[in-house]
């Protein structure tokens, strides 16, 4: 159900502000509305800054952190005081890691530079004199650069130039010397050919010496980087410390942000917020525990204030809120669909997988995951949904007779037929029907459940309309459809059953009135659906238009055929895997049979896990779709926003109370 929200105004002394906010954050019941004009503050900025530095360091050392075993819970439980103490120690680590990262970045940049320099120098390696010796003097001028192949000859032929080519390539490195008097002429000539200037680095060494030196330096840098990497790796085990500090910082950041949302005077502050109606008392008690100088007022929200949407359900239903949240939160004044959706979700999910073996495996797997990893939030909800789904799958598996793809009819050979024979001797497996042989009945069952599902949706909305006193909508828009759907189904049941190859004899005293009920529903829609249209013409077309929706209803019913198809997909593919392994087990000789048996066991585990995984994904999403489109489409008002109270929103740890 949807929990009503109250608007809270709290006035208290500025001196108590920090302690009050800490207490409120601990119980996590109040969402603070930002009513102040000033954005941010020094403290918030400091916390954000610290958070940024912590995340950078964490990212750097994360790959080197000790691997967590599978059996550690998602979030470790730590007391708040402990992680606060970790903040200072973590600051030392971030300083150290940051220094290392900075040093590394400098070295990497230097390495790049040296490598570039070396690449540039390589063509000049044959030059056997110090680079500084080639510089313009009073009498001689030099041109250093690369000459294109096609102009090489031209350059060499110039008599007033002395040219030395160091290498013969597409762009030959060349040193050209001329007398100072010819400098202008030489310069003009060089401009006329394809020539790229080059400048030697300032050095008294020959290029080859310089290259050797550069190589040595690069090696040194590599060693230094290696050293730094080793130090970063050694920080790996401090990841947990940083995570604690990050969570402590996140908690502080949230509180600083809350402070920024308050309105302050010189000595007091005003807090505006949302609080759940059922938590008002706890909240006031908590405040009372901190100070007695306060004013605490709650009131119902005004029309222009949109409260956050919060739902509350019992332990069974609560996990399914996550399925609903995947779609959208309910409108704060609408209906919480979770309690209605839960039984259908469990029922339909099981029908889609419908295999006792898979069901048991899924349920046990989900329960083990919950027990070991203690997941919270979305993953916690979904693992519980899957546990329920697994249970339902196991039960449906008995109804339709499938156990890891093995049914009563022998199909896969070897050991599988022995199991089939055992099921056959039991005589009750399947309890109900075998989808492989009774396809039409199975299809009818799926669509029947679908009709039940959709009609429930109409009824939920109708009841809600009555509750709000809107009996016109309830009768003309909702119940009229229930009459049409149920009337048609009951009225034509014998015909439909005949088409599906079944017998369903209903006396005419039942079918005839049912058809009349359906016609009455049609009449209600035609006459009253357009009741709000201003003109007569609009009233009539409104009704006829609505009647056209019968195609939508029909396609929605057909949409439930997926239950059958997905059920088949699971069962038949499981059976195919068994058949393949059955072939392996029936080798010609005993050693082959033993070998085949061993391979089969490994294969069976892998293949069935794969089948279970992919079909669980399919069942989860397709079942969700049936809820969202076919069920919620009939009554659900989406569009609520999440309730974000000031609380411990931690990523890595669970704060112990």
């Amino acid at each position, binding site marked *: 159900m949807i929990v009503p929200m109250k608007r809270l105004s709290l006035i208290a002394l500025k001196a108590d502000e920090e302690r009050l906010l800490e207490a409120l954050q601990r119980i996590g019941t109040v969402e603070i509305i930002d009513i102040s004009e000033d954005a941010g503050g020094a403290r918030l900025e400091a916390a954000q800054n610290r958070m940024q530095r912590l995340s950078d360091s964490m990212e750097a050392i994360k790959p080197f952190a000790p691997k967590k075993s599978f059996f550690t819970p998602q979030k470790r439980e730590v007391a708040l005081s402990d992680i606060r103490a970790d903040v200072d120690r973590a600051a030392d680590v971030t300083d150290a890691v940051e220094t290392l990262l900075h040093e590394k970045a400098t070295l990497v940049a230097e390495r790049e530079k040296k490598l570039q320099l070396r690449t540039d120098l390589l063509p000049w390696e044959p030059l056997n004199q110090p680079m500084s010796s080639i510089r313009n003097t009073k009498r001689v001028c030099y041109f250093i650069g690369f000459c294109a192949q096609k102009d090489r000859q031209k350059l060499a032929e110039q008599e007033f130039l002395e040219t030395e080519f160091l290498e013969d390539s597409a762009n030959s490195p060349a040193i050209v010397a001329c007398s100072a008097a010819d400098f202008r002429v030489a310069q003009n000539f060089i401009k006329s050919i394809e020539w790229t200037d080059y400048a030697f680095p300032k050095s008294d060494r020959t290029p080859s010496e310089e290259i050797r030196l550069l190589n040595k330096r690069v090696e040194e840098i590599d060693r230094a980087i290696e050293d730094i990497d080793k130090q970063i790796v050694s920080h790996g085990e401090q990841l947990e410390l940083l995570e604690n500090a990050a969570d402590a910082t996140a908690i502080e950041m949230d509180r600083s942000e809350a402070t920024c949302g308050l309105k302050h005077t010189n000595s007091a502050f005003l807090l505006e917020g949302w609080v759940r109606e059922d938590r008002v008392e706890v909240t006031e008690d908590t405040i009372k525990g901190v100070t007695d100088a306060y004013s605490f007022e709650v009131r119902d929200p005004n029309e222009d204030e949109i409260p956050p949407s919060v739902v509350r359900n019992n332990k069974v239903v609560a996990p399914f809120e996550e399925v609903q949240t995947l779609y959208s939160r309910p409108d704060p004044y609408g209906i919480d669909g979770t309690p209605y959706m839960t039984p259908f979700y469990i029922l339909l999910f099981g029908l889609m997988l419908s295999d006792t073996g898979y069901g048991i495996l899924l349920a046990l797997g989900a329960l083990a995951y919950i027990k070991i990893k203690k997941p919270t939030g979305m993953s916690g909800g979904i693992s519980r949904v899957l546990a329920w789904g697994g249970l339902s799958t196991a039960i449906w598996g008995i109804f339709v007779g499938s156990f890891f793809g093995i049914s009563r009819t022998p*199909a896969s050979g070897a050991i599988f037929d022995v199991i089939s024979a055992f099921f056959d001797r039991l005589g009750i497996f399947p309890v109900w029907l075998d989808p492989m042989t009774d*396809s039409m009945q199975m299809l009818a069952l799926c669509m029947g459940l679908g009709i039940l599902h959709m009609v429930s949706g109409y009824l939920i909305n109708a009841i809600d309309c009555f509750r709000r006193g809107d009996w016109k909508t309830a009768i003309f828009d909702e119940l009229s459809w229930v009459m049409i759907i149920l009337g048609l189904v009951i009225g034509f049941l014998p015909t439909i059953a005949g088409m599906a190859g079944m017998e369903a004899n209903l006396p005419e005293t039942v079918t005839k009135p049912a058809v009349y009920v359906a016609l009455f529903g049609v009449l209600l829609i035609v006459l009253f659906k357009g009741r709000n249209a201003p003109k007569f013409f609009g009233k009539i077309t409104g009704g006829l238009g609505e009647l056209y929706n019968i195609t939508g209803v029909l396609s929605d019913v057909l949409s439930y055929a997926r239950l059958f198809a997905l059920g088949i997909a699971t069962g038949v593919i499981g059976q*195919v895997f068994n058949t393949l392994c059955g072939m392996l087990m029936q080798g010609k000789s005993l050693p082959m049979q033993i070998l085949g048996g061993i391979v089969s066991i490994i294969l069976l585990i892998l293949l069935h896990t794969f089948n279970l995984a992919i079909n669980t994904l399919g069942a989860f*999403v*397709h079942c969700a779709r049936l809820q969202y489109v076919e069920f919620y489409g009939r009554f659900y008002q989406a569009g609520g926003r999440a309730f974000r109270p000031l609380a411990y929103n931690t990523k890595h740890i669970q704060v112990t109370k």
Partner: protein
Amino acid sequence: MELGTILATAGAAVAVLFAGFGSAIGVGMAGQAAAGVVSEDPDRFGNCLVMQLLPGTQGIYGLLIGIVIALRAGLMTAGADAITTELGVRYLIAGMPIAFGGLVSAIYQGKVACAGINMIAKRPTESGKGMVMAIMVETYAILALLISFLLVIGIG
């Protein structure tokens, strides 16, 4: 070999082949998009993988129909009775819905999955919605699977 047996074999092959084509294209496209998102944010791998998997089911449906045809027509046991031409044609036609329904729906589901993966990159909390959108496309593959299955079973 009887023409009927050849046609039934073709039916099984076509179902696996085309549905598999579609899934390979769909999963391939979604995989590229997923790799892009994961390169920016490795934590999104789980969500992206689920999205990438969604267009993969068509291939499995095709495989399913292929195997059901093979089993029903006795193609997997050597020396089975020859199938009449009429039955062979029926097997071939029965394989068509999932072959082409699977082919086209997997490609388009792949495109929706790509868009969904991009959505995960921008709004990680909305991954469920992206999943549901991709599932809408799969509906038609499931309908095709259903009809293919009923047709094969109906041949007896």
